[in-house]
C-alpha cells in the first residue's frame, strides 16, 4: 500500500504544483475554475489515452518515441507559458487593480487563461499517464485490491494537499506584488520544463549532453527527496545537470525575460495606482482582440 501511495503521491504532486502556480497566476480571472477544472479533466482523459497508446508512442521514431513525445509536451507547455507571461507583463497591473476593486468589469484575461488550460492539461496528462500505467500493471499483476483502494486515495490526497498548501502560501503575497511574483514563478517553471525536455532529448540521443553531469549537489539536495522533487518542478532544480539542460534553462529564461521587458515597455509606462485601467473598456477590449488576432 505504501508503495502505491508513494508513487501516486509523487506524480500527483508534480502535476499539483504546476496547477497551483497556474491557479495563482490566474487569480481574479472570470471562469478560471472552469478553465482549470476543464484542464484537469482533459488532462486525465489525455493521460488514459497516452497510457493506452504507450505501446505505439514508445515504438515510434526508432524507439525514441516516448522521449520525443515527452519533450514535445514539455516544450508546448513552455511556449504556452511564454505567451501568458509576456501577455501578463503588459496586463499585470490591470489585473492587480481588478483584484482590489471587486466590482470592476472584467473582460481581458480569459484568452490567456485558455492558454494556461493547455498547460494544466499537459501537466496532468504527463503525470497521470504514468499513474495509469502503474495502476494498469498493478491490476493486471493481480495486486491486492486493498493496496489499490487504500494507496491511490492516500497518494492523491497527499499530493493535492501540498498543492493547496502552496496555493494558500502564494495568496499571502501582497496584491501589489502578486502577479509579478506569480509571473516569475511561471518563468522559472517554464525554464525548468524546458530543461526537462532537454533531458529527454539527451536520453534519446537526439541532443548532445554537453557534459552529462556538470556538477553534483545531491549531497545538499537530492532530486529523489521531496523538497528536491518540488524544486525540480518549480524551478527546474537538478542535482546533476547536463550542460544542455543548462543551455535550455538559460535560453528559456533569457527569452522570456526579453519578451516580458519588451512588451512591458511598450504597453504600461505608469504605475498601477495612477492608471485605473479597468475603467477604460476600449483599451481592455483591444488587448483581448490583439491576443485573438
Amino acid at each position, binding site marked *: 500500500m505504501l*508503495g502505491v501511495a*508513494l*508513487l501516486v503521491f509523487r506524480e500527483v504532486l508534480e502535476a499539483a504544483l504546476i496547477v497551483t502556480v497556474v491557479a495563482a497566476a490566474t487569480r481574479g480571472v472570470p471562469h478560471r475554475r472552469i478553465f482549470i477544472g476543464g484542464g484537469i479533466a482533459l488532462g486525465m482523459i489525455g493521460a488514459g489515452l497516452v497510457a493506452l497508446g*504507450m*505501446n505505439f508512442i*514508445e*515504438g515510434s521514431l526508432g*524507439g525514441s518515441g*516516448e*522521449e520525443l513525445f515527452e519533450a514535445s509536451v514539455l*516544450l508546448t507547455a*513552455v*511556449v504556452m507559458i*511564454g*505567451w501568458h507571461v*509576456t*501577455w501578463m507583463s*503588459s496586463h499585470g497591473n490591470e489585473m492587480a487593480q481588478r483584484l482590489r476593486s471587486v466590482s470592476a468589469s472584467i473582460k481581458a484575461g480569459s484568452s490567456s487563461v485558455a492558454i494556461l488550460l493547455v498547460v494544466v492539461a499537459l501537466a496532468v496528462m504527463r503525470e497521470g499517464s*504514468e499513474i495509469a*500505467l*502503474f495502476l*494498469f*500493471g*498493478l491490476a*493486471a*499483476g493481480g495486486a491486492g485490491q486493498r493496496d489499490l483502494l487504500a494507496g491511490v486515495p492516500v497518494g492523491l490526497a497527499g499530493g493535492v494537499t501540498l498543492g493547496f498548501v502552496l496555493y494558500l502560501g502564494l495568496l499571502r503575497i501582497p496584491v501589489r506584488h502578486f502577479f509579478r511574483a506569480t509571473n516569475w514563478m511561471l518563468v522559472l517553471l517554464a525554464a525548468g520544463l524546458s530543461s526537462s*525536455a532537454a*533531458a529527454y*532529448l539527451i*536520453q*534519446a*540521443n*537526439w*541532443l*548532445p549532453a554537453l557534459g*552529462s*553531469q556538470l556538477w553534483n549537489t*545531491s549531497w545538499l539536495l*537530492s*532530486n*529523489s527527496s521531496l523538497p528536491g522533487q518540488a524544486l525540480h518542478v518549480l524551478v527546474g532544480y*537538478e*542535482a*546533476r545537470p*547536463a550542460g544542455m539542460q543548462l543551455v*535550455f534553462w538559460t*535560453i*528559456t529564461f533569457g*527569452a522570456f525575460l*526579453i*519578451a516580458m521587458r*519588451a*512588451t512591458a515597455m*511598450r*504597453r504600461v509606462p505608469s504605475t498601477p495606482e495612477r492608471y485605473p485601467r479597468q475603467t477604460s473598456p476600449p483599451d481592455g477590449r*483591444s*488587448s483581448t482582440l*490583439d*491576443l485573438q*488576432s
Partner: protein
Amino acid sequence: MNRTYLLRSFVLMGLVGAMGAHADAFGASLTQAMPEYKLVIRNHQFTPSALKVPANTKFKVLVSNQDSTPSEFESSDFSREKIVLPGSTVTVFIGPLGKGQYKFFDDFHQSTGNGVLIVE
C-alpha cells in the same frame, strides 16, 4: 498592438526553432557505434543487478521487460526515466559518467527492482 503581437510570436518561435535546429544538427552524428549493455527485468528484478560500464564513455543500455506488467527504468543518479512495457525492449543512452556507483530502479516496483551501474 500588432507589433507587440509579432514580437511575442517572434521570440517564442525563435526559441522553439533554436531547439529544433540543435536537434537536427547533432542528432545524426551521434548514432555511431557505442558500447551496448543489456538489462533484463524479470519478476520485477533487474538482471544483472550490477552492471559494469566504462568511465567517460557514452553507452547504451537495452532494457527488456519479460514481466507481464509495465516497468519504468529510472535513475536520479544519472537522470534517466523510461517506461518499459511488458514484452518490450527499450534503448536508453547514458553517460559519459565519471567513476563511481550510480543507482537505478524500477519506479513501478521499487521494493524489488533495484540495481547499480558500476562505472570504472
